[in-house]
Each structure stands twice: as structure tokens, then as C-alpha cells.
């Protein structure tokens, strides 16, 4: 079995299995947690509207803090949107999802994906530099932050190299790319990357609570 066979075979299968195990374990565990009883009288009949409202409002910088947070939030948006475009717009990735789920959709031009990848990588590097150079951020950061950054950065970088056939033979680059994706999948449920699954749940829960209490959102 060569490296590419290993990457496309056992590595991806077991990484996907660990990923699904971890995701469902954490989500089911959190969603089934016992809630504290709320004896107060509800200010609004429904709370779901507050959940949606808070998800939207918290995704945008508040006016009072805009000056201070605009740069960091813009960076965050650039690489998050970039990652979504790369993940769901590149033809080989769509084929990957189609092989797993049977669902497919039209792809974006490869050149556009390469451009997006370049911008995403640049944004990720700036994010890291900022984390390392900002005294407060540096103090708040731990292994989870840096490792999560690494397993996000590596698939994008190796994917770009594989598409460009640059640095090594294509099969080697593709195998390294797939192995980096496998590492991402294994780490995803157990590190801070899990925020992508929990962020809307936590914001929605807070929004629903605020709505029930009649708080301003």
C-alpha cells in the first residue's frame, strides 16, 4: 500500500469515523444536558425569534466596538468565507462529498479557487501573527489555539501545492493533502474547531433566553 492508497483508504475512513463519533458525542451530550428550571414569567410567547435575531446581530460588530474589532472581525470573515468557498466550491471537494453522501452541486472555476486559497492563507498568516504579537491574545492562547490554526492552515496550503503540482510529485502532494484533512477531521470535535458546530447553538440558546426575559438583543 503506497502513501496515496493509505490516505484515500484507511486514513480517511477512520478519520471520518472519529469525526462523526466526536461530533455526535459532543452535540448529543450537550443537547441532552439538564436545563435549570426557569420560574420567571415569560415576557414573550415565542423565543425562537430571539434566537435567530441574536445569531445575526452577534455576527456583526457592534457600533460601540467597531473601531477596535473591525480588523480582527474582517480577518475572521475573510478566511472563514474563503474556507467555505474552497471546501464547497472546488470540484474535487464536491466529488469527495458526493462519494460520501451522494449529493453534488456545480463547482467554481479552479483559478478562482486558487485565488481564494491564496487570500485565505494570507489571512490565516495575519491571524497567527496577530495572535503572537498581541500581548493579551498571546496570554489567552494555548495549545488548542495554535494546533487548531495549524490543522486549518495545512490542508489549504497542501491543497494549493497539489493543484499547482508544486514541490513534489502530484500523488505525494495529494496524499499529504488528504492526510492533513484526516488530521483536521480527527482534531475537529475535540478542539476549538468545534465552535463551527456549537456557535449557532450557543448563540441561539442565549438569544432564546434573552427573548423570554424580554432583554434587548
Amino acid at each position, binding site marked *: 500500500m*503506497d502513501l496515496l492508497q493509505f490516505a484515500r483508504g484507511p486514513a480517511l475512513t477512520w478519520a471520518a469515523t472519529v469525526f462523526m*463519533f466526536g461530533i*455526535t458525542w459532543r452535540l448529543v451530550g450537550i443537547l441532552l444536558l439538564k436545563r435549570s428550571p426557569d420560574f420567571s414569567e415569560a415576557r414573550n410567547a415565542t423565543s425562537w425569534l430571539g434566537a435567530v435575531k441574536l445569531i445575526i446581530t452577534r455576527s456583526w460588530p457592534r457600533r460601540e466596538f467597531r473601531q477596535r474589532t473591525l480588523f480582527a472581525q474582517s480577518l475572521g470573515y475573510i478566511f472563514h468565507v474563503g474556507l467555505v468557498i474552497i471546501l464547497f466550491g472546488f470540484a474535487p471537494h464536491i466529488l469527495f462529498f458526493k462519494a460520501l453522501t451522494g449529493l453534488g452541486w456545480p463547482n467554481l472555476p479552479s483559478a478562482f479557487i486558487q485565488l481564494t486559497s491564496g487570500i485565505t492563507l494570507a489571512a490565516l498568516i495575519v491571524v497567527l501573527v496577530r495572535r503572537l504579537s498581541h500581548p493579551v491574545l498571546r496570554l489567552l492562547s494555548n495549545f488548542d489555539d495554535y494546533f487548531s490554526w495549524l490543522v486549518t492552515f495545512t490542508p489549504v496550503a497542501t491543497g494549493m501545492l497539489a493543484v499547482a503540482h508544486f514541490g513534489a510529485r502530484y500523488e505525494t502532494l495529494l496524499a499529504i493533502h488528504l492526510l492533513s484533512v484526516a488530521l483536521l477531521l480527527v482534531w475537529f470535535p475535540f478542539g476549538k474547531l468545534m465552535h463551527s458546530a456549537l456557535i449557532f447553538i450557543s448563540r441561539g440558546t442565549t438569544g432564546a433566553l434573552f427573548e423570554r426575559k424580554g432583554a434587548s438583543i
Partner: protein
Amino acid sequence: MNESDTLGASLVRSGVSRRSFLKFCTAMASLMALPPGAAYAMADALSRAQRQSVIWLSFQECTGCVESLTRSFDPTLEQMIFEMISLDYQETLQAASGEAAELARVEAMKSSYGKYLLIVDGSIPTKDGGVYSTVAGVSNYDRLIEMAKGAAAIVAVGTCSSYGGIPHANPNPTGAVSVSDIIKDKPVMNVPGCPPIPSVIAGTLAYFVTYGKLPELDHIGRPKVFYADTIHDRCYRRPFYDQGKFAKTFDDEGARNGWCLYELGCKGPTTYNACATIKWNGGVSYPIESGHGCLGCSEPNFWDNGSFYRPLSTPLASNTHIIAAGTLGGIAAGVVAAGLSRKHQTHIGEEK
């Protein structure tokens, strides 16, 4: 050296003109990306050389490699090859059979001991004493050991002799191995492909006759002049790959427009061969040009690399049952964890 034994004299006797001979040498030099002057050097060397004795052994194979060589697209080139070498033993092509054929092999071995070029097509079965393929009652393994001793070099033609090929595919019931798995003390060159391109076989033979050595090889023993680039790198459909235009089925509009076959499982990006440049049938076409993705037939273990129609970026197998089991396990673990948490919270509440 007797002047009448030279290749040049042989060509004159056969009525091959100097012009045709130079054209052949130029074509061969061009194929192997040699400098312009090499064509004249090749012509000079070949015309003064004695015809190279070649012994061709066929082992566990389908004769496709020999078929490929005999269908060499240019008759003049093919004629040149047969004039350039002395094919002293080849079971399919030779007129002799039975004991007469074996006698020819022994004679050729004796007369050119240490000088002949040994060509092998087919893998070598090693299981159960190599009983699964024998010629004249001798196992392929024993015959290879015997013939390799007197060879100047060995050329493994086809994927079977180069890497084991289809007989080597899982579960490999005959214990098939390649030539280089057995022979360690002789230079071995692999010319893989199922079958290899005729011009590639001819080109490597011409190089050996001209320079008396094998050309530069890559890390798995292939001549770099023919196997340095992937088919994808040289494919005329590559611009469509870069543009993200892919055929979704073999008869959709994309396929009719000649778009990239990556989504249909083409193995061009991981296959090193000259199909896209030299092509087949007189340079007319090659599999991708005919509308089918590359199978990767010149790569080791190509038969075990998953479906021919599964794109390279997808997992080798679905294995959804393993992933589903992981998902169910995760749900169960989540339920247990939540249950324990609730029990713990209740316990704390009771204590209060």
C-alpha cells in the same frame, strides 16, 4: 569485426537508404529528447554496431506487450527495429517451436554470453515453487535466473514484468513478482504499460544499442525520457481542468466538448507515461483522446487502486458502515454522558 556483420551492412543488404536510416535515428533521438547532434551520433554508432542479440522471455502474461510491439505504427520504424537487433528467441514471433526453439535460445545464450539484452514480459510466479507458469517444463523463476546470468542488461517490458501487474493484484494467487524483485545483480530497466507504447520499447532498445547502456532511470526504474511527466501534465484537456470544466458522464455535453475526465475517474494526474505526447496508432490518439479516462496502467498496483471510475480525490471505498457505526457510537456516548451528568446534577440537588 567483420564489416558484413554490421548493422549498416545489414541495412544496405535490406535496401534501406541512408536517408531513411537518418530519419529513423532523428525520430528516435527526438523521442528521447536527446540533443540534435545525437541523431548523427546514433546513426554513426548504429551503422557500425553489430546487431544486438536480444532474447525475449514471456512469462505470466497476455502477449499484449508483444502485440503492441508488432503493431508499431510506422512500418519503417518496425523494420528498423528488427534489422537493428537480432531477435534470437521470442516464443510468439519465432518460426521454430518445441525443442528447436529451446535449442535456439541456448545457442543465442552461448554465442552472446555476457552481451545479450534480455527482455522479459510477464510477471514471475513464485508460489508453490513457481509451478503456475512453466515453459518446456522449467519454471519462469528458474528460467529467469538462468538467462539473467549471461545478460548485459534486462529490460522488463510491460507492467507485469516491471511491477507484477495484474497477476500481482490482490489476492495474488500465484505469488507473482516483478523481474527487479528477483534480479539484484544486473541493470534492470522497467518499461511499464499495459501494454507499453511501441515507440517507447523501440526507443529504449535504440538507446541501448547506440550507447551500450541503459538510459537514466527514475526511482522505480523507468527511463526518464519517457516517464518523467504525468499524462495530466501533457494532456490536451488540461486547460479544462484548470478552468474547472469537467465531463460528468461519458456522453454529456462536457464529454462531447472534450472537457476534463477527472470526475469520471481519470488517473492521468498520478500516471507517468508518454501516452499524451507520443500517442498510439501512428500518433492518432490515446485513451483520453478517445473519450475514456486514463487507467494508470503504467503505475505499480494500478489494479488495486480502487475503481477506475472513482475520482482521485475521493476515498478508495465508501466504508459508510464503519462511519455509521462511529456515528451511532457517538450518539450512544452522548446519551450516556448526558445521563451521567443529569444523575450527578440530581444528586447535588438532593444534597442541597
